[in-house]
């Protein structure tokens, strides 16, 4: 589904990703962990097409398409979804109009008619109950006046509405209390399917108690320095990241 090969990216003159390689197959859930400043959020932003980052070399192949050649909106239409670490507030744009526009853009891309009002509302109802998103929040301006937890739940609500092929969750667990974390995780787990893949970027092992990854990767200084199964997360929790930095040269990228 997704093949990232030797990806390098910089912002301004600062190199952040320094040859990152990763393959995600359909249905897999990959967790990416790593210390602050290791390039986790940069990876998410580059995949989503944020133009403040410049890709200097490497390639990203998504279902046979050169992802880096696509506009941000086209990537989304092809099935890439980014759940933002800090969701943006957009006063005056209603959450529902926003979702309707997004859904219909995606449908038009596939040659489908705009969704019928009745079907749309039914879908909204299903998806919002999945993350226990209050009807009141659904109808308000996008993220405006939402608490941190509500914003994150709104991200998962949007993900459920848009049914992406590849979902990238950028620190969706940061700033969540245990209850909210449980709700968000429940939403993500309900979305897991054999043809949908996830990249879950997190700073904390806690999330991986709720969302069980197939693979865990450690990102450090712009490349993946260690990969393993879900037990790697526990090891990291116990030992921190320092032991990896010291021995990173011995461990080849996968």
């Amino acid at each position, binding site marked *: 589904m997704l093949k990232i090969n030797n990806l390098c990216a910089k912002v301004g003159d600062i190199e952040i990703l320094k040859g990152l390689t990763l393959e995600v197959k359909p249905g897999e859930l990959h967790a990416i962990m790593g210390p602050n400043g290791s390039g986790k959020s940069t990876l998410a932003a580059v995949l989503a097409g944020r133009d403040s980052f410049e890709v200097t070399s490497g390639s990203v192949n998504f279902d046979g398409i050169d992802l880096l050649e696509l506009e941000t909106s086209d990537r989304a239409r092809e099935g890439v*979804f980014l759940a933002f670490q800090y969701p943006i507030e957009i006063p*005056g744009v209603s959450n529902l109009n926003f979702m309707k526009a997004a859904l219909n853009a995606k449908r038009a891309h596939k040659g489908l008619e705009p969704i019928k009002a009745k079907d749309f509302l039914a879908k909204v109802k299903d998806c919002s109950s999945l993350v226990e998103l209050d009807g009141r929040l659904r109808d308000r301006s996008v993220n405006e006046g939402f608490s941190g937890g509500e914003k994150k739940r709104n991200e998962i609500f949007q993900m459920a509405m848009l049914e992406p092929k590849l979902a990238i969750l950028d620190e969706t667990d940061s700033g969540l209390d245990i209850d909210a974390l449980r709700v968000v995780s429940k939403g993500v787990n309900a979305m897991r399917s054999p043809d949908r893949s996830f990249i879950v970027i997190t700073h904390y092992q806690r999330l991986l108690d709720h969302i069980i990854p197939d693979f865990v990767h450690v990102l450090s200084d712009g490349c993946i320095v260690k990969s393993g199964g879900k037990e790697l997360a526990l090891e990291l929790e116990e030992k921190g990241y320092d032991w990896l930095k010291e021995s990173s040269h011995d461990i080849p990228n996968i």
Partner: protein
Amino acid sequence: MSVFTDKFSATLPPPTRRSERWKYSPIAKLLKNDISISEEAAQGINGWPESVLPNPVINLEVYIAVFKNGIFEETLSDLPNSEGIECIPFSKLEKSEDLEFSNIYSKKEWIGELNERYRQDGLYLKVHRNVKVDRPIIIHHLTDGTGVASFPKHFIRVEEGADLNIVVWSSASDDSSGMYNGILEASLGPNSLLSLEKVCNEGGKVFHFSHEHIVQERDSRLKMHTFTIKGDWVRNELEIISRGKGTDSVFNGAYLPVGTEHIDNHTTMDHTVSDGTSTELYRGIMYGNSTGVFNGKVFVRKDAQRTNAFQQNTNIVADRGASINAKPELEIYADDVKCAHGCTVGQFDLDALFYLKSRGIDEKAAKALLVEAFLADVLSSVSCKELSDEIMRLYTERHEW
């Protein structure tokens, strides 16, 4: 008769850039034009271009007063004719005893003096005590022709407890040029309500000057909107004087010029007595090589204690060649007041744009959503939905959102 070469035209000199009020809206270009008053008599429907509807808000049931090049067009007009409402053009008015024109403007500004000197016609409108006019009244001005000037002046009196909705709509056919110089004076009696919407949707190359002078008495409410949809060179001057306690004044505006259009909004809110509230919100998006001016003055006089005045002007400069000069001015002489003002000039919020795009919405549609949201606060307070829908439709059509 050419207006600018007529030596009797005005005693005041035309304003220059040395005057602060005109610094960013120089009129030198206007003075090079040969502009004269149309002397043709009213031609009714035969002289009216097909492309312009006499009632510009087709879905709205209205009374309508139509003026072409400043001349009242009786056959296209439909004035209210019920008890408690006097609505008649000056050219047909017999009495003139209670015309309380303030006339200050004609003494202090060249533009005002020109209007005084060349005044053609206008609406005399008086709503009697506790009468509510059942439909909005649209005053529609059309400029049609080359080098034509119109000089209307309207007089509106809303008596105690009365309720009136007026729309002043100006249009011009695409090959027109000239000048529109219109004045509107309104006085609001105690506890009355005036909703006043001003819409400029002029094609061609017309210099548009409009000046509203509004006096509010005790507990009266003003809801005013100034929308510039299209206009080559537009200056809107609005002056509101709160002369009685407890008045409420809401005045909002929006402008989205393109190309080399110039749009200027000068507003003055004068709180002379206590317990008044004013809320002002002007929003603009400057496209292309357009230029703009916002100048908002708020005076809170010594006796205007417990005034609550709010002013906000928010601008987006969408393209590199566009610019706006924005200046809020507050003068406060009372000591127990609440006044807030904010003025910003910025660009489209790139984070918001990226967020929308990351959900599959393309750049153009994403910008349209942001613009709609940006205008929503101004449009949502318009007195009737048919009108705000039509204004949004015209903006949408023009900008191809």
